[in-house]
């Protein structure tokens, strides 16, 4: 019998369809994920331009476990700097958002511009007393060498990404042409309006959230609302698409107006044929011109964010890992500048389906927590993601776990596992 806790984890399965439990439980591996996925080679989500509309506006955000600040400088430029003082390392920005002309670390009042340049160091040239100068920084101390860590920034359609890695490819190359096209469908240049936030802490490995939105198998089974009202059902017209490296994906689906066929509901205990909504506003779906057909496009941009369009509800979902077994999941719901008051109200009411209390999303957090509990119990075991076979390919249906296999195909390469 194999040890329950392998001393040296080895991926002993072919391909990427059987994922070892230790991929979710090993702390050293998690640190390597932070290093290789969040801090190198990947664009990570930090926020929306609409959150910092005016010069001086800032928003505290996070990449992996590193606190960063998204700012709009006096010249209108968008910047992302690390929230760690160059002097004594203090995480100086504690407010979540605000407007400032400069950042001041309270400890010794080192001051920085909103682009991260060090401006002032108290007592830099010493303090005069009895005709002599006491102390001060060494002569060769140069403020230009001691700014905040500045990140590379890419903004597209009002969405801001950043990277600690200044050698990273362009955002468009990172996304690839297919994913860029779906990104542009949602963020097509219209100004966004922020409707508000939801924050939840999910006690599971962060990858499980990516996998949840790369898994079209579960929505028509776990989520009664989806299956019963045809929002997400195995017989919906749908496509699954990935970038060339299989790290990002889009699940594209068009709501079925027809009654469910028996194959997709027979024996599915979550299907409630007699279920009627009392207040129809919960599903008052009005197609919008920019949809160009699909009623839902769920997009995973690896590793940090999910872009949601589910009928009239649109949001970004930011994955903020905290250790191997927990992550914070921050939802930013938005609308568009040309929304009528009725459309805004519709988006807000449909938000009842999503978020930590949502009719269809609350269960996702629950199954992630319980999966993590299973993994911790016996790290030597593995999951099985073999619906639709063993390979990785785009499909024109959703009866497959190809996107999860794609993600682990990529993960194994980058992680050298």
């Amino acid at each position: 019998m194999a040890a329950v806790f392998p001393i040296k984890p080895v991926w002993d399965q072919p391909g990427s369809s059987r994922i070892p439990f230790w991929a979710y439980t090993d702390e050293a591996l998690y640190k390597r994920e932070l290093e290789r996925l969040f801090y190198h080679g990947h664009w990570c989500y930090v926020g929306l331009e609409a959150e910092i509309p005016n010069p001086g506006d800032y928003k505290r955000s996070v990449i992996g476990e590193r606190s960063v600040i998204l700012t709009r400088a006096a010249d209108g430029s968008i910047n992302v700097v690390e929230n760690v003082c160059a002097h004594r390392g203090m995480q100086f920005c504690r407010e979540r958002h605000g407007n400032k002309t400069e950042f001041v670390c309270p400890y010794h009042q080192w001051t920085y511009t909103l682009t991260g340049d060090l401006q002032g160091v108290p007592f830099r040239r010493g303090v005069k007393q009895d005709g002599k100068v006491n102390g001060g920084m060494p002569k060769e101390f140069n403020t230009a060498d001691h700014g905040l860590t500045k990140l590379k920034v890419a903004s597209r359609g009002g969405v801001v990404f950043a990277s600690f890695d200044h050698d990273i490819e362009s955002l468009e190359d990172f996304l690839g042409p297919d994913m860029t096209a779906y990104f542009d469908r949602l963020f097509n240049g219209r100004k966004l309006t922020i409707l508000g936030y939801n924050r939840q802490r999910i006690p599971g490995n962060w990858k499980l959230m990516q996998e949840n939105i790369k898994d079209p198998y579960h929505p028509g089974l776990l989520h009664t609302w989806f299956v019963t009202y045809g929002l997400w059902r195995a017989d919906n017209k749908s496509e699954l698409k990935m970038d060339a490296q299989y790290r990002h994906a889009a699940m594209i689906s068009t709501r079925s107006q027809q009654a469910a066929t028996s194959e997709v509901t027979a024996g599915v205990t979550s299907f409630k044929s007699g279920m009627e909504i009392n207040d129809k506003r919960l599903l008052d779906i009005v197609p919008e011109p920019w949809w160009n057909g699909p009623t839902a496009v769920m997009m995973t941009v690896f590793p940090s964010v999910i872009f949601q369009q589910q009928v009239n509800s649109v949001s970004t979902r930011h994955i903020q890992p905290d250790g191997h077994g927990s992550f914070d999941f921050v939802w930013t719901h938005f609308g568009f500048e040309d929304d009528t008051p009725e459309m805004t109200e519709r988006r807000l009411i449909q938000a009842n389906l999503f978020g930590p209390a949502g009719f269809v999303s609350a269960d996702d957090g629950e199954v992630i927590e319980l999966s993590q509990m299973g993994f911790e119990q016996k790290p030597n075991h593995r999951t099985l993601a073999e619906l639709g076979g063993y390979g990785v390919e785009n499909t024109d249906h959703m009866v497959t776990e190809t996107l999860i296999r794609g993600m682990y195909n990529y993960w194994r390469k980058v992680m050298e596992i």
Partner: protein
Amino acid sequence: MNKLDFDTWLALNQLYAEYAAAVDSNDWDKWIALFVEDCDYRVQPRENHERGLPLSTLALLSGGMLRDRAYGIKETLFHDPYYQRHVTGAPLVEKVEDGVIVAQANYAVFRTKLSQETTVFNVGRYLDRIRITPDGLRFAQRHCIYDSEMIPNSLIYPI
């Protein structure tokens, strides 16, 4: 009138106690019965409330939506089983106008999962508008504005 007579004060306290008892005992019919039909029930992060952002974690804007939520809890939402326990502070009555009591109260909700210790689940204050009806006091509005920065995974039952 800007002051409650003693009987109305007692009724208001009784309403708060009945509300806590209903949501702690999973008596969703009782919970719904404590609202008027054209009600406005929200669970909203303090952040959104104070910044004037309209999004709520839950926004149930009619008796029908309350019933839809109750059905969801009973029939459609999968979740790890848990008990909840409310502790509600004394009502702070702000004003009484046109048959409506405007009041608020602090609350704390504890969660107990099976085989686990009890934890603080959600803390905040209720912002209420309570209508004086022939059938007694009923909530026209209950906004649960919560301080808790993170929802511990998911929120299934009403606060």
